[in-house]
């Protein structure tokens, strides 16, 4: 192993090396080898090999050119993770000895340097300070598929970037390549799209274009969107794309010229077009929103009106299950809600005994 990076350096020197504070060249009078620590020129190959073998700058160069994945986005992601563009090699290596961490969605990523070798680990950010021994250890990146499938309550997660990743696991020791594979398994395409955004090349497809290309059972969404206002799309984005629902940062808008009025979120990775869940929701809303509003007359006490609002809030915010069984002070408490139903529903389930008109 030790010989590999030295051999590679000697083989590459004739092309010249200028990377991360390491400069190597091969000229007529011999090799030059420069780092912030040493400055050699006119040295022979044997001397080059000796200085290279001891230099962290050579190990660093070798890692980035032979060990790290070379696909541009994966490479840039690993550089971002250890703050390579903000810190020089000496500073970085000091930091890496203690471990450098970053957050990616709900993932807590750490890179540590030991004996000149980088090791990566991933765990849930909520487990950042938990001892590894109490977490389930994994070493196969593809295990992330199963972990990502269900939340802590066993519910299926159809949206990989929903903020409901289960806790209690760790990938304690991954190579650079396996780190990237694991991250991409938890959050598919986030590295690719983040990098495109960094390079100012993110291909955003806005609502109108996304809806226009739908066919089959989703073709109906086009009829919801008549090009006369975008309030309905604000509602969709507020319902589905809020940080509380999805960790992607929404970059798509109504169309090229019309921004939506709701916040796109603050996630590190961008959302470049309405996803399949948004389109499936939009199909349902297209049908529901085709109905004409009716006027119904009910009588509610002020507290009952507020209770209805509390119930809607609790369901919309996913908090209904957290309300304690005997907490009758909460409007969305089960007993409170059952009382409301007992009082206000007739035998057919009509609110206030008023039939639904269609």
């Amino acid at each position, binding site marked *: 192993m030790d010989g590999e990076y030295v051999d590679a350096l000697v083989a590459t020197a004739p092309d010249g090396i200028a990377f991360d504070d390491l400069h190597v060249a091969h000229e007529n009078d011999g090799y030059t080898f420069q780092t912030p620590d040493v400055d050699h020129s006119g040295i022979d190959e044997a001397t080059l090999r000796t200085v290279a073998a001891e230099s962290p700058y050579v190990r660093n160069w070798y890692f980035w050119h032979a060990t790290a994945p070379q696909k541009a986005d994966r490479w840039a992601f690993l550089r971002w993770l250890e703050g390579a563009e903000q810190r020089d090699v000496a500073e970085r290596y000091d930091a890496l000895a203690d471990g450098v961490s970053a957050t990616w969605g709900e993932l807590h990523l750490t890179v540590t340097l030991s004996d000149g070798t980088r090791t990566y680990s991933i765990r849930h950010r909520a487990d950042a300070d938990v001892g590894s021994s109490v977490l389930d250890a994994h070493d196969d990146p593809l295990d992330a598929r199963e972990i990502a499938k269900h939340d802590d309550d066993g519910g299926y997660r159809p949206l990989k970037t929903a903020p409901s990743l289960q806790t209690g696991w760790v990938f304690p020791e991954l190579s650079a390549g396996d780190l990237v594979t694991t991250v991409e398994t938890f959050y598919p*395409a986030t590295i690719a799209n983040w990098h495109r955004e960094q390079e100012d090349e993110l291909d955003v497809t806005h609502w109108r274009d996304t809806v226009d290309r739908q*066919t089959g059972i989703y073709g109906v969404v086009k009829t919801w969107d008549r090009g006369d206002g975008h309030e309905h799309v604000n509602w969709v984005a507020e319902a589905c794309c809020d940080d509380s629902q999805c960790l992607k940062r929404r970059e798509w808008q109504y169309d090229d010229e019309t921004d939506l009025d709701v916040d796109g979120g603050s996630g590190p990775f961008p959302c470049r077009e309405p996803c399949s869940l948004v389109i499936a929701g939009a199909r349902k809303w297209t049908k529901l929103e085709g109905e004409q509003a009716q006027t119904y007359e009910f009588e509610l006490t002020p507290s009952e009106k507020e209770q209805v609002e509390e119930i809607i809030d609790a369901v919309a915010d996913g908090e209904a299950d957290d309300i304690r069984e005997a907490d009758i002070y909460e409007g969305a408490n089960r007993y409170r809600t059952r009382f409301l139903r007992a009082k206000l529903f007739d035998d057919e389930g009509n609110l206030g005994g008023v039939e639904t008109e269609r």
Partner: protein
Amino acid sequence: MDEALVIAAHGSHLNAESSTPTYDHADTIRATGAFAEVRESFWKEEPSFREALRTVDADEVYLVPLFISEGYFTEQVIPREFRLEDWDPALWDSDGTSATHATLTAEDTGQTIHYCGPAGTHDAMSDVIVQRAESVTGNPDVGEGFGLAVVGHGTERNENSAKAIQYHADRIRERDRFDEVQSLFMDEDPEVDDVADYFESDDIVVVPLFIADGFHTQEDIPEDMGLTDDYRTGYDVPTTVEGHDIWYAGAVGTEPLMADVVLERAADAGADVGAAIEQVREETGGAKPATGD
């Protein structure tokens, strides 16, 4: 140059197990090392069809739809979402079950995409159906004294869906292995509800031509055939219905040999995966040479 395999499957917003066969077959192929990368992608899950290619490093990609038949998904949705430039269904020059592949460029990534016909219409799929019958009966020689029903959705939305079912039923019938082979459908005659009416044999193996187990294969079909009044209470294999023993196999796509069909699709499109095919057939029990071609 590195080559990648991308499998395009339906997936589900509701059913956590819909993706399982896709993952399993991808893992089988991954283990052969035949491709630099193997990537699963889904219509309803992630990575999405739209973004799968940008997660792949290779410049050359074999794209295999893990779908049963040619039609809406293979002709419209997949080429559109993968942004295959200049796609036209005529490039497949198919009669409804004979698509092989077309080579195109992905508009957003520039990768060369060998877009293959669906796994479900490949000739090797007949072997998977037979192997599914072997698996459910626990009998590697199952055939004599048995009828085989190949079950499909029907033509409600896609006439090629029924063609694929009939194509394999015909091919297996020609092998003279089973006493009788019949294609049955969920939403048209001959209907799977009347399975006992269509067979003389005492034993009938029923193999639904679906990729993943779900609502149709786990709830509809068992109840329609009278294996159970309520799918939640389960059923025996075999279950006696109107004097016939019905061996219900569940979705054919869960059969491990399915990985071979995916590889065959890539091989037909030019991938050098002969050794991987042999290895997969060996591992998944499909080592016997195909017959009836």
